């Protein structure tokens, strides 16, 4: 695969991004049935975490990142401990699922440990849950239409 120089990608994105990819990283710890949420966690993710019933006791916001990008271009989100999340959004023909999103979780040595391809809608958030012993990292990922 030939990669375009990053300045070219930046120029293209600066012109007209096709989508904005959002990744909200949260750390989860403890066990409990009445979880405590960091008030900085956006409401939409808090609601998803409540409904997911993951049985952690405390959720703390680590970072919120939004990256405008073009279709088929990969954007990378840093995760704690030098891990990272790479996300690519592409157009999909089906009206019910206008997006194909591919994400990859990379470890500290940039080795791919998970690659998932999925079809979804604009604004639809999914959760990536990475247990770390009794704690976990949870990443809410959503692809939005850019504000015009």
């Amino acid at each position, binding site marked *: 695969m030939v990669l375009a120089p990053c300045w070219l990608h930046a120029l293209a994105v600066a012109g007209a991004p096709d989508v904005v990819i959002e990744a909200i990283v949260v750390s989860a710890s403890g*066990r409990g049935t009445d979880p405590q949420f960091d008030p900085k966690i956006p409401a939409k993710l808090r609601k998803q975490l409540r409904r997911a019933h993951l049985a952690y006791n405390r959720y703390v916001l680590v970072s919120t990142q939004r990256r405008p990008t073009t279709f088929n271009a990969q954007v990378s989100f840093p995760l704690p401990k030098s891990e990272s999340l790479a996300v690519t959004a592409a157009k999909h023909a089906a009206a019910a699922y206008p997006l194909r999103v591919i994400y990859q979780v990379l470890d500290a040595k940039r080795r*791919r440990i998970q*690659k998932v391809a999925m079809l*979804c809608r604009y604004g639809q958030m999914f*959760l990536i849950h990475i247990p770390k012993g009794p704690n976990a990292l949870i990443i809410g990922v959503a692809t939005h239409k850019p504000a015009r």
Partner: protein
Amino acid sequence: MSKCPSGERLGAYLDGELADPAAQAVADHLEACPTCAAELDALRELKQLTSDLAVPEVTDDEWVATWQAIAARVTPAAPARHTAGLWDTVRLWRLALVPAAAAALFALAIGVWGMYNVPPQAQAHEVVVESVETAAGFTSMYYHSTDADVTIITLVPADTQEAAQTDESTDPL
């Protein structure tokens, strides 16, 4: 009278998850609609029942062991090597025929039932996972609840127990 809110919306109202204007709209509707008021009472009763349940405290060791057990169950086992003769093959096919026919009939019945009973918008709610690739030493699990529109993809290290023992700091940060 406004349109009856969905069960999911009533649940969100009960959990205090609706913003003020939406919550007020549901409250106004509940005053005028005894059916929805009764449904909210039932939800409230259910919530009370579940909150009264004594939930045993789970230790960190038990939690780690649970993940390990789940990972072990979802990891496909290596196919067993078996050399079967022709007669064994025929006999196996005959043995498999009855359950296969039953399964086909069951699938057909479910399909026909599904065609007439799935709400049209429900099909478009799910995130469709097309493919999952996981590196050796890890297991992926996928959970989706159409009701709550929640999709979770879990990435579990297969040696969670070992990792917890070797890495004293399991804080993800």
